[in-house]
């Protein structure tokens, strides 16, 4: 013994030494070396037989792990320390385990027994430590093995242990959802625990659980409500209120019940966090509908207090809350516009961002100028080093665009001003990625919709196209500016100047997509310039034009070998045309005898571009064009040949195909009755069917097939089903109006070839569709605002256009935000297992069924008794009455039981006769799926 004691230090460094050593290191390299040395020492020390040495090594490693050094190799040693009989060592062991173990740490398998032992320890501190530790290292197998022990712990005599056991249950549920079923009754009891910390823990756990599957916890509402009204512990109240926010949306009746106590808290509490939670609950619990003026007024009014304090945090959360309320009650929030506007210039960018987000909803025609001015001022850097971060600048520009374009430019009275704003935005956002394109799109939109400002917009675009700075620093906008210059070349003052400028742009400067737009713009501008009859084609002009044409030809030649397909194709197309023109010009007489322009330039070319004016088309218009009757878009028209292994199967398949063909033929016959069907795809599919042998139709068989197909499609996530009733809903892919517009003058030509007029939709007069509008023949709807005409988007059918809806904007926004957050979220909490975990399935149903069965038996008996009694009626009439009464009572009971069980499992077929209607239930589910699909469609259209 004495020799051991005399030995010089058993470990080289204590934790204290280690930390001091690290602090003593001068530079990162030295620190790293020091730490690596220390780790290799620890490697020796953890193997030591002396528990103290081992423990100290593990503690040192835990410290280093915190600094980012791996200690997973020591997992087994950690486990050894954890199983030490000494509390001090055990404590270190658990600490290290909590810090370093992951669910995939393989030694966890060995930990089960040790944890069981600690959980069963007579010392409650050991138990508590094991529970704390478990909360961090629980794996699915540990959860399964220890669930029982922990459920027992929930009834431990010490509230200290009870509370921890309850809390750790949430972690157990995450890993082993089955435990929820067995422990639920006990969890429920814990809501009534005499110790407040245990109740609080239970509320915490249920609150988390209810986020995933609120339905399970509705039955607890009365108990929770009781806590809500009696407790004064703010920590718990916040959780309870949060919990109710999850429950309220699925049980509308809760709203009426909850509003009084919550209102009471809102009006009495001094704790801002609680006040904020209450308002949050009202908003996110769906308790604030459009007609809840009073409640909304109170919330909005209370939130104003948040802005009157100097606390930045309150401002921030206040803005968050306003942002939610503004969706339903914009006017109420607008009453606080003053404080919100102040936040727009807050030194804190996160507050500013939220404020700007909110201001979009609050601007009107009077305030728009002022707000935009303030925001633009922010974008202009005050000094070199005070440039705002890029994401914020992008955000501000987006908001400016949002608030101006909102509701089809409802707030913009002066479009020259707006175009000027856009031009300025392009200038001040130089170098900000991607934003140029968004501004350009807006410019294009304005130019297309507002005829009166086109002139101005074209002027602005010309300046951009010729601006070298923009080409380098903000090229995104040029794609749209180029399009405007070409499409509205008629407004150009100096077409030859811009042609010159474009042709002389250096090849390397612009990206391919911009080049493609420019190449398209060149002929448009050219025919505007050359085709004009105003200037006589004198000899000198002829020569001038020849030179210009030659320039364009050489420009296009350069790109006819481009690697970009779009650039190449367009330049090759127009190259040929310009060569012809050059030829025509070259052949003109050399004197001034013929002053008219060549026909190729004055007539042929303009006809390519100027036939129709392009109008804005709603992005949803295409989707709303009804499917012609008999056209089944879900039908494969080229069924792939399937090679099956057995002959039988093959035969069956063949038979099925023949069936399909039969069906197709029959639908074709129906089509034949309808007028000319000339859509290409249609005729193609028709011809492919022609080959099939036509047989007599078997209506019944067809119906069966259809049914089967529908069922197959119901299982296929890629199919949106349509029932017969909603045949008019199409699932054609949505085409972006923007892209179809920017593809420019090609469209009318293509469309003509397609022969739009003969598409059956024109002839099918479906009552629900008001006057069908083709893309080009415009029937424009205009809003009169001041004296500016803004062309509305053309769409099909219902004019209820939602392009300016706040909801849509919100959606667009959130999707934009989601996109910016698209990077994989590494903070995932894996609670998926709980999402669909229904407490009431299986077991509970079984219990219910038994109950019902019992009642049924009782009824039968009651009936028998009643019958017997009837026989003995003469003898004792009063007994019968009694029995009957009892029977009535029982019947009621059974009914109640049934209702209850139906309630609990809504999709489950009725209890009693579920043997015979298997098929029926299948149908029901199908119907449900179909309904859902319809809802999906509707949802999209909104």
């Amino acid at each position, binding site marked *: 013994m004495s020799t051991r*004691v*005399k030995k010089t*230090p058993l*470990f080289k460094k*204590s*934790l204290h030494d280690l*930390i001091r050593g690290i*602090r003593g290191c001068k530079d990162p390299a030295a620190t790293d070396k020091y730490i690596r040395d220390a780790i290799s020492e620890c490697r020796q020390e953890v193997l030591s037989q*002396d528990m103290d*040495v081992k423990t*100290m090594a593990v*503690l040192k490693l*835990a410290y280093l792990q*915190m600094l*980012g050094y*791996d200690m*997973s190799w020591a997992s087994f040693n950690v486990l050894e320390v954890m199983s030490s009989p*000494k*509390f*001090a060592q055990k*404590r270190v062991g658990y600490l290290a385990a*909590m810090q370093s173990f*992951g*669910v995939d740490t393989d030694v966890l398998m060995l930990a089960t027994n040790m944890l069981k032992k600690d959980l069963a320890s007579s010392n409650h*501190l050991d138990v*508590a*430590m094991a*529970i704390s530790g478990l909360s*961090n290292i629980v794996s699915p197998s540990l959860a399964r093995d220890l669930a029982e022990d922990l459920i027992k712990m929930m009834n431990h005599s010490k509230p200290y242990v009870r*509370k*921890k056991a309850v809390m*750790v249950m*949430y*972690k157990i549920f995450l890993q082993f959802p089955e435990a929820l079923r067995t422990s639920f009754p006990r969890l429920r009891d814990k809501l009534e625990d005499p110790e407040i*910390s245990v109740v*609080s823990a239970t509320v*915490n*756990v249920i609150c*988390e659980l209810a*986020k995933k599957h609120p339905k399970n916890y509705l039955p607890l509402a009365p108990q929770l409500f009781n806590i809500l009204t009696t407790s004064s*512990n703010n*920590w718990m109240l*916040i959780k309870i209120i*949060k919990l109710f926010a999850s429950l309220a949306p699925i049980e509308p009746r809760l709203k009426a019940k909850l509003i009084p106590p919550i209102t009471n808290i809102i009006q009495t509490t001094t704790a801002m*966090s609680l006040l904020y*939670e209450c308002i949050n609950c009202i908003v996110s619990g769906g308790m604030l509908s459009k007609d809840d003026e009073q409640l909304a007024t109170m919330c909005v009014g209370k939130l104003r207090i948040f802005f009157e304090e100097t606390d*930045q*945090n309150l*401002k*921030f*959360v206040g803005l968050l809350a306003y942002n939610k309320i503004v969706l339903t009650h914009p006017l109420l929030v607008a009453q606080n516009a003053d404080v919100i506007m102040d936040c727009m210039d807050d*030194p*804190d*960018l*996160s507050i500013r961002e939220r404020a700007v987000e909110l201001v979009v909803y609050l601007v009107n025609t009077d305030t728009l100028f002022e707000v935009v001015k303030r925001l633009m001022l922010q974008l202009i850097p005050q000094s070199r080093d005070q440039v705002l971060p890029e994401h914020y600048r992008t955000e501000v520009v987006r908001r400016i665009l949002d608030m101006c374009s909102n509701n089809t430019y409802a707030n913009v009275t002066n479009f020259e001003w707006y175009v000027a704003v856009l031009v300025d935005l392009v200038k001040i956002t130089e170098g900000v990625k991607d934003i140029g394109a968004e501004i350009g799109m807006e410019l294009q939109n304005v130019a297309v919709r507002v005829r009166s400002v086109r002139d101005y917009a074209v002027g602005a675009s010309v300046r951009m196209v010729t601006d070298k700075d923009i080409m380098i620093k903000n090229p995104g906008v040029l794609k749209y500016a180029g399009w405007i210059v070409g499409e509205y070349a008629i407004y150009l003052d100096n077409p030859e100047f811009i042609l010159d400028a474009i042709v002389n742009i250096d090849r390397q400067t612009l990206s391919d997509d911009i080049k493609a737009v420019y190449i398209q713009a060149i002929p448009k501008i050219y025919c505007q310039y050359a085709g004009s009859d105003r200037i006589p084609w004198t000899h000198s002009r002829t020569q001038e034009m020849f030179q210009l044409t030659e320039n364009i030809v050489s420009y296009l030649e350069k790109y006819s070998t481009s690697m970009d397909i779009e650039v190449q194709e367009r330049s090759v197309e127009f190259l040929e045309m310009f060569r012809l023109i050059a030829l025509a010009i070259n052949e003109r007489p050399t004197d001034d005898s013929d002053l008219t322009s060549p026909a190729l330039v004055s007539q042929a070319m303009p006809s390519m571009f100027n036939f129709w004016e392009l109008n804005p088309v709603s992005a949803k218009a295409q989707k709303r064009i009804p499917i012609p009757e008999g056209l089944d878009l879900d039908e494969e028209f080229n069924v792939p040949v399937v090679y099956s292994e057995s002959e039988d199967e093959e035969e069956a398949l063949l038979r099925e195909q023949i069936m399909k063909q039969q069906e197709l033929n029959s639908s074709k016959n129906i089509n034949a009755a309808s007028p000319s069907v000339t859509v290409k795809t249609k005729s193609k599919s028709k011809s492919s069917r022609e080959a099939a042998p036509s047989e007599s139709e078997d209506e019944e068989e067809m119906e069966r097939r259809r049914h089967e197909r529908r069922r197959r499609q119901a299982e296929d996530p890629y199919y949106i089903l349509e029932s017969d009733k909603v045949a008019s809903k199409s699932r054609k892919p949505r085409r972006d109006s923007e892209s179809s517009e920017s593809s420019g003058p090609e469209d009318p030509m293509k469309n003509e070839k397609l022969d739009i007029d003969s598409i059956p939709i024109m002839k099918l007069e479906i009552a629900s569709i008001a006057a069908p509008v083709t893309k080009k023949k415009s029937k424009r709807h205009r809003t009169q605002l001041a004296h500016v005409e803004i062309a509305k988007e053309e769409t099909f059918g219902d004019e209820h256009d939602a392009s300016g809806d706040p909801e849509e904007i919100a959606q667009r926004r959130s999707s934009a935000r989601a996109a910016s*957050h698209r990077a994989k*979220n*590494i*903070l995932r*909490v894996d609670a998926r297992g709980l999402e669909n975990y229904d407490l009431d399935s299986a077991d509970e149903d079984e219990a219910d069924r038994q109950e019902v069965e019992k009642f049924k038996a009782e009824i039968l008996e009651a009936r028998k008794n009643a019958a017997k009694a009837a026989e003995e009626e003469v003898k004792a009439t009063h007994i019968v009455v009694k029995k009957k009464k009892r029977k009535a009572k029982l019947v009621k009971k059974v009914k109640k039981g049934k209702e209850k069980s139906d309630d609990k499992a809504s999709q489950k077929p009725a209890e009693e006769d579920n043997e015979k209607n298997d098929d029926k239930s299948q149908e029901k589910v199908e119907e449900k799926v179909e309904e859902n699909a319809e809802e999906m469609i509707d949802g999209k259209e909104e």
Partner: protein
Amino acid sequence: MAVQYIILLSRQGKVRLAKWFLTLSLKEKSKIVKDVSTLVLGRRTKMCNFLEYKESKVVYRRYASLFFIAGIDSSDNELITLETIHRYVEQMDRYYGNVCELDIIFNFQKAYYILDELLLAGELQESSKRDVLRRISQQDALEEAEGDEEKFSRLMPYISQLPGLTSYDGSGLPVPGSGSSSTSFSSGRGRSAGSRVATSREEYYG
């Protein structure tokens, strides 16, 4: 889950404590620490204490030279998280007695123990201030009792060799070897009275 992680960060960006209520790999953890540190250290005093990071929120507050950072779910209440952080600081203040950064550096395990009594699985487990400290002192007392026992057993050979020594006073004796382990284990203990002056701490920790 309410709190996903708690990180204590010095003004220079050094991690003083990192408690994870999520199971993440070391790599993921370092990424979050790195990202969040940059975000938080870039904030100025006049700014609010909330940040958005990925799909979660970050709530932080600066106490002297230390940033206390908590990552929470996006649906959670920021204000109450600030309260939780404050509660933690209060508890440490009471435990260490006028806590400073050095206390946490050199007794990092104690800081974890306190946190483990305050939060469990990311949820606040005890809203009573007194209760948390009571548990910690119970645990410390248990440790101490063990330590004394051990010291006694280890010292027995010496004691028997020392003539005339009738009473045992552990603290008065130099304990070589393993003794130093128990000193560093319990160095936080016995000084919780708060009698020490903060300025002397630099010397104390060396």
